[in-house]
């Protein structure tokens, strides 16, 4: 009797764990003995997507390397909430230097490890979107261009949350921030601005580039593991909703990330040496409006009268992503 591939919810790649899976096929996060590299007692807000994403990613890196990692952290929420004197929430070797230099500091660590012949120890650099795509971008590009053996992870919450939600180069169009307020004829962040860090990373033709969200843990863990199979510069861009800056319910963090992906606004894909090798298809397509409505930073689009023109423009961006990255199955 041919045993048919069982793809019910518990083995489907959607929940964190599965009591029926072989241990090696389970996620790191499902493991009672997971490293918790970012442990309890940190001062992140309730429902912080970055705290979640960071533990997911660094735990995965820890698992992939058998715990042989050094983490370099840019200034930002993650750094501030995890290491205020006299307590740190990190349980790995961790260094914070400055806002804009994490990739270069990581390069330095990697160089030191190489000289000392400790190639078993891998380096992870990490920071928020501001530290990555704005102030740290020159260092990031340099690290990419030299192909230094560093996995850099950007936790993208689409604004400068640590300083009180100011606009960054990763802030999406129409989003309200403290410096792109919801006032005037074109409220929120202007259209036609911002940069796509993952595509720019790909332009460096580094071995591995991927995007992910905190809504798909298995995908995120897989990508960290995959990244660790390469030597050289690797980049992982993770969408991490911020309840404070996005004005979402603290319990909505994962749902909103899911909607970002399912609406097509945040394409999830993988690329090797500058070529896209895989995209995560949209499973249940939703209109961007559903994503936008969940967030106070877009509330000005749903006033009286609603800004249907702006919503349509955002939908067009999502549709463009869907075409460009082939996010929908042909039949879908």
């Amino acid at each position, binding site marked *: 009797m041919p045993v048919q591939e069982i793809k019910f919810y518990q083995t489907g790649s959607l929940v*964190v*764990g599965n009591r029926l899976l072989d241990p090696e096929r389970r996620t790191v996060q499902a493991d009672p003995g997971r490293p918790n590299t970012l442990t309890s*007692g940190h001062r992140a807000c309730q429902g912080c997507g970055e705290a979640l994403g960071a533990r997911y990613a660094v735990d995965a890196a820890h698992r992939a390397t058998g715990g042989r990692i050094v983490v370099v952290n840019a200034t930002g929420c993650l750094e501030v909430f*995890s290491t205020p004197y006299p307590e740190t929430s990190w349980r790995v070797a961790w260094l914070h230097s400055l806002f804009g230099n994490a990739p270069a500091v990581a390069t330095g660590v990697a160089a030191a490890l190489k000289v000392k012949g400790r190639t078993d120890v891998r380096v992870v650099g990490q920071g928020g979107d501001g530290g990555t795509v704005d102030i740290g971008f020159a260092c990031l590009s340099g690290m990419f261009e030299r192909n230094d053996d560093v996995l850099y992870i950007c936790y993208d919450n689409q604004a400068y949350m640590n300083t009180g939600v100011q606009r960054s180069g990763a802030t999406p169009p129409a989003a309200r921030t403290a410096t792109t307020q919801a006032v005037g004829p074109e409220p929120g962040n202007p259209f036609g601005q911002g940069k796509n860090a993952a595509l720019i990373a790909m332009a460096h033709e580094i071995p591995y580039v991927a995007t992910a969200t905190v809504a798909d*843990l298995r995908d995120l863990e897989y990508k960290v593991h995959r990244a660790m199979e390469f030597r050289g510069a690797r980049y992982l861009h993770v969408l991490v909703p911020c309840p404070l800056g996005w004005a979402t*319910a603290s319990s909505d963090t994962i749902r909103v990330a899911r909607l970002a992906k399912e609406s097509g606004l945040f394409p999830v894909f993988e690329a090797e040496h500058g070529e896209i090798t895989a995209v995560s298809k949209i499973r249940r397509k939703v209109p961007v409006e559903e994503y936008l409505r969940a967030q106070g930073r877009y509330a000005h689009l749903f006033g009286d009268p609603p800004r249907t023109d702006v919503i349509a423009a955002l939908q067009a961006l999502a549709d463009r992503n869907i075409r460009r990255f082939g996010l929908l199955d042909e039949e879908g």
Partner: protein
Amino acid sequence: MDRPFAITLEVGSSLANKTGAWRTERPVYLDRFPPCNQNCPAGENVQGWLYHAESGDYETAWRILVDDNPFPAVMGRVCYHPCQTACNRGRLDEAVGINAVERFLGDEALRRGWTVPVEAEPSGKRVLVVGAGPAGLSAAYHLVRLGHEVTVVDSAEEPGGMMRYGIPRYRLPRDVLAAEIQRILDMGVRFEAGRTVTDLRAEMERYDAAFLAVGAHVARRAYIPAGDSARILDAIKMLRDTAEAEPPQIGRRVVVYGGGNTAMDAARTARRLGATDAVVVYRRTKDRMPAHESEVADAEAEGVRMKWLSTIARADGGKVLIERMRLDETGFPQPTGEYEELDADTVVLALGQEPDLALLEGLPGVEIDKGVVRVGPNMMTGYPGVFAGGDMVPSDRTVTVAIGHGKLAARHIDAWLRGTQYTPPPPPPPATYDRLNTWYYSDAPAQLRPRLEVARRITTFDEVEGGLDESTALFEARRCLSCGNCFECDNCYGVCPDNAVIKLGPGRRFMIDYDYCKGCGLCAAECPAGAITMVPEET
């Protein structure tokens, strides 16, 4: 390593910072009442046994099942599975094939010869069960397990009641029925065949309690002007004779009068007995038929014709005269005065049945109402110690309901015998669809049971519906959403940004670490089953 003051810190030291103090709401695990369980007339813990079937532990699944219902193999064939009608998955794609899995478990148990041990201390009490149908056997089964000595008497030669004499073989093979009944008898239930209880009062001298489940075998008659040559049969009798391998002569053209399941059974049986033309005549519309729609569909598939809004005005000489009806505003059928004629060698009346309550005569306190015995919430009749259930009490007349009566009655009888009260636990809050986070359930189409092709169906009494094999049954079991109850998917454990969920290990579920839980509610929001709720902290 001598560490520079303040700038360099000991790893993990933030555990000293108990962020639980930030919390305004706390997550709490709970078990909700899944709709399948809630809607099972036999009171099965459907989700409970599916949980074990999912992991391939069929025996544990079966044991949880037979804790409530001794007839999984029978149920898996004849139950109209209201559980599936209520199944939340039905709103996602298709309901879980609970009935199919139940049948798989029932057949698996018979194949492997699993038995149910009697572990209770003998109570020394003796209980009489009148009627070896589903209600009676169910009661007997539960009473034996509770340590009582049980005698089942039935006027028929074989136990099973309607399961044997009412339900045709092609729906319920006799060997399956016999095996599940035998398993009950093997537990020490005494069965007296061919004995009709006429004087219950006398019987009660020898028993501490009695459970009456005589069923409803008396066909309801309707006056139909008929000529001498008209051949008119009771559906009940026709089915019974067929069951006893003495099928009646019915000719080639058969008209069945009635709209219930029995009518469908009669029409389908008629086809199998050689009727080329079987017509069901019913005075209301299809959607008002009491017959289960699957039965109607099967009948139609087998070539049975339906004449809605029709009554039989007269039957004679190989013909019946049909009057067309129309429904008035109250939905009651009214004659139209329009007539048509149908050829009919035989007219089969399937207008419902009534119980034969002769045995109750002279029993004080027992109230009869509209032909059925009135019982209290504890299933006891007006006469102390005499309980009743099944078709003879007011309720839906299905095997499943009867089995449920048997179980409920057994519990009350047990309490009564011990001089206590049986009060069922209050039901937990319902596990409604809106509480689920259905994102996490990957798409999985329902598994279909093989069905016998029509050609063979109308020529033999072979079972029409086949069972699932191991892999399809496993797949189907795993389609369960575990509504309202933790199935250890680890979501809460994984999605907590504060590592404030403690995993207790297989089967032991999880615990919230309130020292660190900030009350963000992610665990509750991302629990697929809706088994976590947020409650405000007292301030």
